[in-house]
């Protein structure tokens, strides 16, 4: 099977999160992902898309921003890429909460950093590239493997 590619452009608004999850759920079902894989993909894309909308565009003072969602499927995997022109942000360089943070009582633990950690842990592979002034956040779910526990 050749790679099939679909590109959809969204307005950088939190209103698009739900339609994106619906599209990814439908796509996940079409390619035979299990419930956990589909949920993980929706979660990962949701977290990063939220960061792009909030921090990449809103906080950077960029109005009427847009981003592309590219869905590529072949016989081995489903890859979803968010391409945006907002402020550069590399989630791979973001400090993740430590084991110590995660075992802290909820009263004391810091409130940030969870989203990026959840995004990175909810898909088989997560990559980030910055090229030609675009952030590219890439999420890959492999068909042969379950998401690791």
């Amino acid at each position, binding site marked *: 099977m050749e790679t099939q590619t679909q590109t959809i452009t969204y307005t950088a608004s*939190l*209103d698009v*999160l*739900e339609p994106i*999850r619906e599209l990814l759920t439908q796509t996940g079902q079409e390619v035979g992902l299990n*419930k*956990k894989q589909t*949920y993980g993909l*929706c*979660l990962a894309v*949701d*977290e990063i898309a*939220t960061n792009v909308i*909030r921090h990449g565009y809103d906080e950077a003072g960029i109005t009427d921003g847009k981003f592309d969602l590219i869905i590529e499927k072949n016989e081995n995997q489903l890859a979803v890429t968010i391409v945006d022109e907002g402020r550069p942000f590399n989630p791979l360089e973001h400090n993740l*909460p430590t084991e110590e943070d*995660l*075992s*802290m*009582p*909820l*009263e004391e*633990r810091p*409130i940030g950093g*969870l*989203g990026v*950690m*959840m995004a990175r*842990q*909810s898909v088989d592979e997560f990559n980030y590239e910055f090229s030609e002034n675009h952030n590219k956040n890439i999420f890959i779910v492999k068909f042969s493997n379950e998401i690791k526990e």
Partner: protein
Amino acid sequence: MQIDIKTENSILIVTIEGSIDSKTASEVQQGILEGSVGSDNVIIDLTKVDFVSSAGLRVLLMVYRQIKAKNGKVILVGVSEEISEVMSMTGFINFFEIVDTVKTALDSY
């Protein structure tokens, strides 16, 4: 997302339907925090919630802190396998009592 808030025997019962993402989380948080002013205990029914992002976990954290400060208890009802997974990943799961029905939750106070 829909949220329904009622009080039974001074226990706040919050029923949420839909998704708790970064768009809907503030509404959920405001609803629960306002509703819990007169209650020391909160039951959050997530039976009809299909998606919770980190923004939703943050709401649970805020509610937990507020209720804990009053020596109360937060009980979650009907947490799906996927949401439970996310709560485990982030270490949230150990702080909440999780039961299957609102009745069980009410009986445990």
